[in-house]
């Protein structure tokens, strides 16, 4: 069986979310343009977001959760496209480490995404056609600038905390660097202050897979009623391997055969791992826009917080009063402990208040999304004591 023979872009349900998301939406017009690092501006910006819990009277209990590469605003409630639980529902909710009984949680889809915030699949008001590649390249600072506009609009001055993993962790670092006075506590998880060469390489493989698909059509596939399904699925398959670990993969699949007793001496999915990856690829294209994948990966590639501060990461955090809790995982080879420790080292050099734990886990980068009790206990303890210091009931 080939990856998938369907031709529609991501499914209609997903397509509907782009213009009319089934979450809250904030719209900004030319009076409040989003200024981009590329020098361009977005005169029409739509931000799709979800909130959980109640904002307290003095607006001191707001937590911004930042999503990763293919995440979205549905952090703690069922995803409207897939029907699956929110991507961090183990972490966020009543009584969870990010406790919605105590904190007011905000999660917005990032600029460049495809779940209701302006991205390449959104209609360009100037042409009434999807932006496709006419959308300027979006950076992590751009994403954070847009989030700050949303937070302003919600009437929140200081966030009690900003938390997120991977690309979400990059946003956390950018928040702390760009708006130190607006962030009381920061929880960057399984992330880095810059994307390494190896990680840029993986992303480039994925982008080339998308662009090599004849149905990509120079990015104009939506207009032409097709979609680079195969290319995006291959990109996802390759990327998915980087989120796991050799140990975890072998434990789960070993060399087990898929629905057969013997090797077929062909190129069908003989092995369970092949079948699993094909499934991951084909379900991903049902929910995610191919061009958004290009934009999101590019944003991560461009991220280098030290470069933006005279080459010295500590300069990004000089004089900060934000308290940090950095978390890494032993088997994460995409955002390894050494990258997370570089953040800790810079924070120490800047005299910042920082805690750091390296969680023992063999589940690779994905561990931050999974049931990892030690991570929960660390983040729960950190936010709980910080909440007390902040005077949050």
């Amino acid at each position, binding site marked *: 069986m080939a990856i998938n023979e369907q031709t529609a872009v991501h499914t209609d349900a997903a397509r509907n979310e782009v213009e009319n998301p089934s979450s809250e939406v904030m719209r900004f017009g030319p009076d409040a343009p989003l200024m981009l690092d590329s020098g361009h501006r977005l005169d029409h910006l739509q931000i799709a977001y979800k909130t959980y819990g109640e904002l307290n009277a003095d607006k001191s209990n707001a937590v911004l959760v930042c999503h990763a590469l293919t995440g979205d605003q549905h952090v703690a409630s069922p995803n409207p496209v897939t029907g699956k639980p929110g991507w961090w529902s183990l972490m966020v909710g009543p009584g969870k480490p990010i406790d919605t009984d105590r904190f007011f949680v905000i999660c917005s889809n990032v600029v460049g995404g495809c779940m209701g915030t302006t991205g390449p699949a959104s209609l360009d008001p100037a042409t009434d056609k999807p932006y496709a590649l006419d959308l300027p390249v979006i950076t992590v600072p751009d994403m954070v600038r847009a989030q700050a506009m949303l937070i302003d609009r919600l009437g929140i001055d200081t966030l009690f905390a900003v938390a997120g993993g991977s690309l979400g962790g990059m946003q956390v670092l950018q928040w702390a660097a760009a708006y130190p006075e607006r962030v009381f506590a920061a929880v960057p998880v399984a992330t880095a202050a810059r994307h390494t060469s190896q990680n840029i390489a993986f992303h480039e493989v994925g982008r080339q897979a998308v662009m090599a698909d004849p149905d990509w059509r120079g990015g104009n596939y939506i207009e032409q009623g097709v979609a680079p399904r195969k290319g995006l699925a291959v990109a996802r398959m390759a990327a998915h391997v980087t989120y796991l670990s050799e140990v975890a993969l072998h434990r789960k699949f070993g060399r087990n055969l898929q629905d057969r007793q013997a090797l077929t001496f062909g190129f069908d999915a003989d092995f369970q791992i092949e079948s699993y990856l094909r499934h991951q690829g084909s379900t991903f294209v049902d929910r995610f826009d191919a061009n958004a994948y290009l934009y999101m990966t590019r944003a991560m590639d461009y991220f280098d917080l030290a470069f933006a501060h005279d080459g010295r990461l500590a300069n990004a955090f000089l004089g900060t009063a934000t308290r940090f809790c950095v978390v890494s995982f032993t088997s994460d080879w995409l955002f390894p402990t050494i990258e997370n420790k570089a953040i800790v*080292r810079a924070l*120490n050099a800047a005299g910042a208040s920082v805690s*750091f734990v390296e969680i023992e886990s063999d589940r690779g980068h994905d561990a931050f999304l999974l049931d990892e009790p*030690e991570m929960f206990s660390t983040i729960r303890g950190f936010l*709980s*004591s910080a909440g007390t*210091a902040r005077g949050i009931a």
Partner: protein
Amino acid sequence: MNAPTIIADGIRRFDLVNIAGMVEEGSRVLDIGCGDGDLLALLQTTRGVDGRGIELSQRGVNQCVARGLSVVQGDADTDLRDYPDDGFDYVILSQALQAMRHPRVVLEEMLRIGGRVIVSFPNFGHWKVRMLLAFTGRMPVTRDLPYTWYDTPNIHFCTIRDFMNLCDEMGAQVERATPLDRSGAMVRFSAPMWFWNMFGQQALFLLSRR
């Protein structure tokens, strides 16, 4: 539950009080091997310090973080080089010097990171230790150092005299040297160094760069 300790709990507790007495109010402190954060918490409440910690065990770090302390999971033998020069007023190593792989390197890093260094360690020159070795012909196992040679985390024992020599070699100024008895109380009377080296069970040093 306490984080794993490499030395009897009672000593650690007295040690904390003695160390806290050496730290000036409102200073910046780095506690190496901070365990579950008892010393940092004590220093924060009684001396108003701005404290940071390094701890090897995940359990210890999690306990510290839950207490609102800023603690980094790491290994003093390798991670001290990540700290900038003169980032702290005091760098503290309580009852852990003997467990370091490279005690001299650790001490030198501490002197680089902090204006003042506070170190406490068990004195292997104590007469009981000497007697055990001399008369049983075996490596001493005592109430405070209950491990046998093959499973001990304490791999670099020294005597008070050894430590003074090292300070000399490193060019560290010994500002205060206090022998402690078994309970951790300070030995108050003045005595020559050979006497301390014989009768002090513990040693507590305050060092600075010369």
